[in-house]
């Protein structure tokens, strides 16, 4: 019996998300079996390790079981929230990642909010004034910003504003051992955040400008806008009350999908500015070849993207009843 209405739609979506997450878990497990050599030996860069110690570690990391057994053990551990033990930090991967999440959220939420607001604003203007010089300028600028990889923009901003002009700090999240508390601390954090935030904003803004613009152009072609115009409504009122509101729907959807994309910017910018978040953690995990940690960060990123998409789908389905029908078929 097919499920009906929003509840059915939501259940289907959630089921699909769960399947995807399971597939991600399988993929994640398999990729790391492609590694050449023995990961336990790799952990020890020092040859002064005895055979017993090797054996001990192999058991500790569960690598003495056959592949199938390893997979089951991996699944079982996952359900208990155990993502393994970091080779490098010697503690639970989940704990390592959890330590970094607040810093990343701070940076990403700030940057995305700014990028979305500015992007929608510029995109709306561009679409509204389509064909004018302003439109061409905004369009070209957005495409250009979108083309500069976030890390290279970061390097350039860092060279100019941190190295040559010394206006902003050389990286990090706060001044080390400053003893700042309360407001002073947050001011310090804001000062450190400035360049990384700008780098991420620059990268995402283009995406939102382009989306809003094309969605705006579609909306402006609709009959009700023409009607509104015919009724002699003020241009700005039409923009605000009719066009923009309708043009925003696709932008909302895109936010979910863009999260997959946003992850890239986080990794690059956090690396350049040594921002102590998950992005920098990925870089360090790569440098240290800490495979459990790398596996963990990948899982967290992938699951976050799937869940964000699910949330956006649900919100979208809730707002726009037509979608349920459309997607259900």
């Amino acid at each position: 019996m097919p499920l009906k209405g929003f509840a059915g739609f939501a259940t289907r979506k959630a089921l699909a998300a769960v399947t995807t997450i399971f597939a991600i878990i399988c993929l994640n497990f398999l990729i790391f079996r492609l590694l050449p050599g023995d990961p336990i030996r790799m952990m020890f860069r020092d040859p002064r390790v005895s055979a017993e110690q090797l054996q001990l570690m192999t058991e500790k990391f569960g690598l003495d079981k056959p592949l199938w057994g390893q997979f089951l053990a991996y699944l079982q551990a996952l359900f208990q929230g155990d993502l393994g033990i970091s080779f490098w930090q010697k503690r639970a991967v989940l704990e390592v990642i959890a330590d970094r999440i607040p810093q990343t959220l701070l940076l990403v939420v700030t940057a995305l909010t700014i990028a979305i607001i500015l992007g929608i604003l510029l995109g709306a203007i561009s679409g509204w004034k389509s064909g004018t010089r302003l439109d061409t300028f905004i369009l070209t600028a957005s495409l250009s910003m979108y083309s500069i990889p976030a890390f290279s923009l970061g390097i350039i901003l860092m060279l100019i504003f941190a190295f040559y002009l010394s206006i902003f700090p050389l990286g990090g999240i706060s001044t080390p051992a400053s003893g700042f508390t309360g407001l002073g601390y947050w001011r310090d954090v804001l000062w450190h955040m400035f360049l990384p935030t700008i780098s991420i904003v620059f990268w995402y803004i283009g995406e939102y400008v382009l989306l809003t613009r094309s969605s705006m152009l579609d909306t402006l072609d609709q009959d009700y806008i023409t009607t509104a115009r015919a009724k002699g409504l003020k241009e700005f009122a039409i923009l605000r009350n009719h066009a923009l509101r309708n043009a925003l729907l696709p932008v909302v959807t895109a936010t979910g999908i863009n999260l997959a994309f946003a992850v890239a910017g986080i990794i690059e910018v956090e690396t350049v500015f040594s921002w102590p978040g998950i992005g920098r953690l990925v870089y360090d995990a790569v440098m240290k070849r800490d495979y459990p940690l790398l596996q963990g960060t990948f899982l967290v990123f992938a699951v976050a993207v799937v869940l964000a998409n699910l949330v956006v789908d649900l919100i979208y389905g809730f707002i726009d009843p037509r979608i349920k029908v459309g997607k259900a078929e």
Partner: protein
Amino acid sequence: MSTVRRRLTEAWGFFQLLLTHRMGVLGLSVFALFAIIALFAPFLHTVDPGKSGVVENILIPPNSQFWLGTDDLARDIWSQVIYGSRISLLIGFLATILTIFVGSLVGLISGFYGGKIEEVLMRITDFFMMLPQLPLMIVLAAVLGPSIWNIVFVVSIVSWPFAARIVRSQVLSLKERAFVEASRCIGASDSFLIFSEIMPNVVPLMFAEAVLIVTEAVYAEAVLSFLGLGDPTTVSWGMMLHFAFESGAMVKAPWWVVPPIVSIVVLILGFTFLGTAVSDVLKPGYKEKRGL
């Protein structure tokens, strides 16, 4: 023979249409510029980009002998940038070919046969589309080890689902059209249909996709190399940035950092413009709008 001529005429027409688009012109020029640079690299005042120089020439600023200065082994930056374009374009084109091949295969098969096959293939496609690209690329590159072939592979892994989707939807709409139905009626085989009727109509769309894959590949090479997952024995823009960042000579020698960044940005921007132009031109009604 006549089909070949017809295709060529079509392609020429498409090219001329592109030239009416400002971004198309810009994009094509950038592409032409880098293609020429890559092809004629040995004749462009270059030396062996990997060959070390003499100690007096270590990290010297741009001058008449070294147009863009030198790096920390007295290697010529100009030559590295020029030869780096070969690596970027090579990775770009190989990744494009691989992506288009896999993507088209999946798209064609699922679009053409439908049913269970389609469902399974599209599930897989959706799954890969859902994965965050850079983390996946990093994980794969870390596991597979540093080489440009692995970068090609990694870029293809993250790009093929998009190609597959586009091809599939195109096949679906073409399948319903009259000429495919007609061929079916006269007993044409599946492969004949795919290659003679459907493929040619999918090509322009794939061209738009291909252009975007090149930008993806250039970006991937740059970012993976920058993160230390590139191959240090090849001269590429990403590796230049990586070495400059790691050496601690970035502030001292901006001429080591700026040229690769500019090259990466210009190439990606050019191809993005080209991609925008191609999809604009392919939109129904483009000719009319332009009054052509």
